[in-house]
């Protein structure tokens, strides 16, 4: 149904055709098809000619227009603004309208096109975004102010909004959710899009529920379940870098006093170990990261298996100081309590 809605009008087609360069290229698309009336998905190949400047979305639309009108996909703006056409192209999430076919297949290789991951497929390249929106809703994506509203507008310092500008740039395309590896293992994880959106409100000086938000985000499926795999940073078409904001939330949560979590314990024990000896006491980290006896006990067989193999952990009294540890200690003393306001872990943009 959707596929028909986005068919180019004749006028649009002529207009675009007039602007297309003369050179065409042969594109081989290997598209994952799924029909809910059939049992299992299958791959279907299409070979078409498109202009050299064509995007993967152009190629898919060409297929639908000229080869197979049953191919279902979502798209709208074709300008990387609406976020409708996120899908997996050659194994990773991308906006089809922002991805040139020639970049995916410089030597004419087949281009594999699959629906976005971590969301149920409705048909072909169309996924059900309900799970995505449920997670966004869960972080209460609206300003919660308190007290009487100002007579005119809220006044906030410019610098307070700079970080928020990055998170506001999210177009809700679902690319980060598609390729999130934590979400792949645990559907209960809030995921990168919702957590980046959560920072947008935690970091907003107008919001009066920062502490409550942070406390909720520390719970199961929250900020401590991110694995740091960088996939969301890698695939985001708008350089929102959700993982950076998850890290910000972790730091703000700890500062706000949310410390009774294994994630916080892990981070603190790690830092203490390096501060004291210049290197990591793995045994101490493995045990002291757990706040409950059950967690600690679960690690005991792991340690015993290592000992049985002749690997004696250099922990506790066996954990020696590295040469130069006094310099490392001094740097911790100098920097560990430095005001971090405004210092963000920059995973570096792609420029």
């Amino acid at each position, binding site marked *: 149904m959707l596929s028909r809605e986005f068919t180019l009008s004749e006028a649009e087609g002529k207009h675009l055709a007039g602007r297309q360069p003369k050179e065409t290229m042969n594109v081989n698309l290997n598209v994952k098809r799924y029909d809910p009336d059939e049992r299992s998905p299958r791959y279907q190949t299409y070979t078409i000619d498109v202009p050299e400047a064509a995007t993967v979305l152009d190629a898919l639309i060409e297929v639908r227009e000229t080869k197979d009108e049953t191919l279902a996909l979502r798209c709208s703006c074709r300008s990387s603004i609406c976020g409708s056409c996120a899908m997996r192209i050659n194994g990773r999430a991308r906006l089809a309208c922002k991805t040139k076919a020639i970049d995916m297949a410089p030597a004419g290789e087949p281009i594999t096109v699959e629906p976005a991951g971590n969301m149920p497929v409705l048909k072909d390249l169309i996924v059900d975004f309900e799970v995505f929106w449920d997670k966004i809703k869960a972080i209460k994506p609206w300003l919660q102010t308190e007290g009487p509203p100002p007579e005119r507008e809220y006044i906030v310092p410019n610098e307070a909004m700079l970080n928020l500008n990055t998170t506001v740039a999210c177009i809700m395309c679902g690319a980060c959710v598609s390729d999130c590896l934590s979400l792949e293992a*645990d559907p209960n994880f809030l995921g990168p899009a919702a957590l980046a959106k959560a920072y947008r409100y935690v970091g907003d000086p107008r919001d009066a529920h920062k502490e409550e938000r942070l406390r909720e985000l520390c719970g199961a499926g929250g900020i401590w379940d991110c694995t740091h795999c960088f996939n969301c*940073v890698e695939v985001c078409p708008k350089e929102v870098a959700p993982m950076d904001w998850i890290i910000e939330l972790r730091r703000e949560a700890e500062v706000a006093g949310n410390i009774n979590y*294994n*994630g916080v314990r892990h981070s603190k024990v790690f830092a203490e170990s390096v501060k004291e000896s210049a290197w990591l006491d793995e045994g101490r980290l493995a045990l002291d990261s757990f706040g409950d006896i059950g967690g600690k006990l679960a690690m005991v067989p*792991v340690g015993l298996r290592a000992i049985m193999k002749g690997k004696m952990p250099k922990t506790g009294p066996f954990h020696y100081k590295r*040469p130069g540890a006094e*310099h490392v200690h001094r740097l911790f003393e100098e920097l560990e309590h430095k005001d*971090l306001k405004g210092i963000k872990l920059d995973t570096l943009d792609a420029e």
Partner: protein
Amino acid sequence: MQYAFYPGCVSKGGAPELYQSTMAVAGKLGLELPELFEASCNGAGVLSERNPELADTLNARTLGMAEELGLPLMNICSTCHGVLSQSNARLKKDPAYLARVNEHLKPEGVQYKGTTEVKHMLWVLVEDLGLDKIKQLVVKPLGNLSAAPFYGCYIVRPTWVLGYDEKPQRQHYLEDLIGALGAHSVEYQGFNKCCGFPVLTMNRENALKMTGTHVYDAQTRGADCMVTPCPLCHLNLDGQQTDAAGVVNQQLNLPVLHLPQLVGLAFGIPAKELGLNKNIVGTRRLVEKALG
């Protein structure tokens, strides 16, 4: 060929077989590895999350030590490699930031000018020594083995920090190396995914689910072993495999080798010298098959 050697915490702690096998293989390759004994832990992403400037200062200190020797730095851990590469990129990108970091280092007399190149042993083997040289040193081609590559997140992402734009071939170095050793490289879904280790203490079930899924996937696709350039991944894939089997409800029994252990086998280095007796999942049958 010389490199300032940064062994990382795990090869000096929980995975001594990695250090051992690295030394054995380096001997065969003629690699000279002056070790940075005074270098600190790079923070494994945890310190930079707590305090980026502190982590970058510690890493500038390490990079400055390699710079002082006039050598590129060699890692044997994907995580160390990624974290040092990220710090290096931040420091090189912003001269004012580098100057501030150098102020912190002044009392020790260490400075970093921003010239050190960070390389993982995998890259050294493929880019600097070359697969032809590796092939020449193979005395026991591993034709009987199917090995499943497992990279570790920090050596594959973010791609722009790790030079993949200039060298996209880095995406398949592990497969290329496995092939150069005569073994068959197994294709499976999890090769560049997360092993779960970073959330082991926060969400153990999830961590073990990731581990179990990848091991099971590799195993069912006919792998005789996995091979990884990351000892943190190894801690999960090998050390936690028994518990991961329970979480994914599958029988798992797949040896997981450190990168230099697989290379060393093909170079004819005795298994014990490579520390293969220290791997948690038994490697005896694997070694017999490899040499048989």
